[in-house]
């Protein structure tokens, strides 16, 4: 038995791997052959920074690839809770499911869901950003995964259900919507049913209910949109290279706000980012499943 300090306490090591990755990321030139999945992943990745905790749910290839990209580039201290279960996992590669055990291989902690995960999520200090995939999303950032049709009890289409979105929209999270198939049936004037609270009816309606947080960005295969701070109406933030304002409008079920002046272009992935996505993080191309491939 020893009364002396352990080696791990005495010798905090430099984190050499992280430093090397950071250098590569900063100096790498824009990629010539990136694809839109990679562009969306890079855009989402930029939203997650050191000090954040990120988690993901089902069928979330773009978020889990984005988190791993952030960890390998600008946000080495990002905390990732894979599948809302595995803390800081080391998966071999993005697997065929983002809610099965291969994603959270080699975790530091298995977070029990009922008591622990939801305590962390409700607390308000952790997991303050959440990525949302919704079947319907409206101009005020409300999400719908419940029903299509006017009557909840007589749905035209039964969607999967709100799962954790019905919580995440109401408990102060910054919401990041992603949609790889920007079309007027998915991005609509008003959702048929609010199963994830966004800016509700716009303006200060969300705030009046005592809710903090709210929708921040919408990242699609055409553009990035945010919400105008007063009206809380969806607004074009940047166009993906090669996409026009008209294409965005035609693919949207309402008139998107367009800020005056030149519209920014979404940043193109660097060669290093493309390399990481294609060859290190998701060599099997699971992210393409979100595009129906």
């Amino acid at each position: 038995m020893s009364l002396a300090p352990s080696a791990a306490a005495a010798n905090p090591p430099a984190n050499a791997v992280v430093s090397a990755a950071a250098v590569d990321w900063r100096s790498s030139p824009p990629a010539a052959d990136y694809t839109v999945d990679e562009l969306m992943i890079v855009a989402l990745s930029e939203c997650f920074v050191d000090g954040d905790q990120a988690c993901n749910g089902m069928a979330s290839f773009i978020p889990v690839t984005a988190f791993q990209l952030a960890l390998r580039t600008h946000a080495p201290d990002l905390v990732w809770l894979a599948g809302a279960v595995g803390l800081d996992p080391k998966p071999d590669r993005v697997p065929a499911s983002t809610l099965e055990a291969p994603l959270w291989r080699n975790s530091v902690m298995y977070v029990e869901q009922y008591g622990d995960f939801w305590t962390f999520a409700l607390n308000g200090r952790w997991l303050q950003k959440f990525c949302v995939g919704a079947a319907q999303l409206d101009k005020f950032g409300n999400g719908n995964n419940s029903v299509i049709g006017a009557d909840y009890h007589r749905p035209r289409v039964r969607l999967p259900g709100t799962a954790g979105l019905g919580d995440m929209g109401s408990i102060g999270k910054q919401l990041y919507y992603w949609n790889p198939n920007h079309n007027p049936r998915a991005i609509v004037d008003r959702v048929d049913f609010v199963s994830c609270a966004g800016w509700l009816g716009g303006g200060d309606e969300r705030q009046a209910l005592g809710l903090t947080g709210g929708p921040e960005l919408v990242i699609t295969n055409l553009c990035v949109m945010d919400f105008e701070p007063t009206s809380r109406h969806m607004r074009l933030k940047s166009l993906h290279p090669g996409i026009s304002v008209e294409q965005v409008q035609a693919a949207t079920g309402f008139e998107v706000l367009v800020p005056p002046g030149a519209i920014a272009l979404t940043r193109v992935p660097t060669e290093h980012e493309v390399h990481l996505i294609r060859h290190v993080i998701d060599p099997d191309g699971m992210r393409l499943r979100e595009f129906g491939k």
Partner: protein
Amino acid sequence: MAQVKLTSVAEAMTMVGDGDLVAIQNMATQAAPMGLVRELVRQGRRDLGVVCLVGGIPIDWLAAAGCLNRLIGAAVSMEQFGLCQRYRKAVEAQQIRVEELSETALNARLGAGARNLPFLPTRGLIGTDLIAINDNLVMLDDPFGGPPVVACRALVPDVALIHCHRADRYGNVQYEPTALWPDLGIMPKAATRVIVSAEEIVDTDVLRRNPDRTVLPGFMVDAVVEIPWGAHPTSFNPKYGYDTGLHLAWTKAARDDDATAAFLERYVTGPANQAEYLDRVGGASRMAALQRWEITT
């Protein structure tokens, strides 16, 4: 130390009656008590309600077999294998009524049921349309003058169906280290009866080696049955992965009424026992592949 709860699957499932509200462990493609669910279908239960967190293929099989008339849950999805089409059609035909809850609201309803409290509060769901359509949720002012909460009425399922890695004959239930979802963490504690299938029945002394892995005490459990590979075709980490092939075969069959009936006959009602079922889904060689988490179509 306690009463013997070990029995056969056929005997155990007679504890479920027509009309019962049945809580089923299952997270999309994970950890469903499929051996128990298939027996429910074989025994022809009707008018069942289901409580699930995120229900997958067991919900679709029960819907396809006409066993269900209501569901309380947060979602129904087979993730990469898509929506549960037979369930969806039955809901759209108004044959199944859905009480859709967020995860914290479902947890609160079950937590209140488990603790004999009339309700538990959440701050989820505020602002959504899910409160107004549900008599089991109501806004409640904070008696201390803080923000209001959503009071979630206690939910007590008639029976919970659980699958585990090992159990003893007294119903002490052990789980290997892996994800621990609320459908194991709270659902069985809320239910009036608990029926457990185990990959393996072991002597109690085996459980004593890892008392931290025992998740349900025998006194909570009404019946325990041994069903090796009892979660197939869902995954049961760390022992085995989900069966991609059988999920795909089901999603294909589910498009068509005749193919659905043939599938149910071949895989659900036809096999007389777990051994026959395992033969029909590929036997020992396929189980070995799933044990290696191979994605086999």
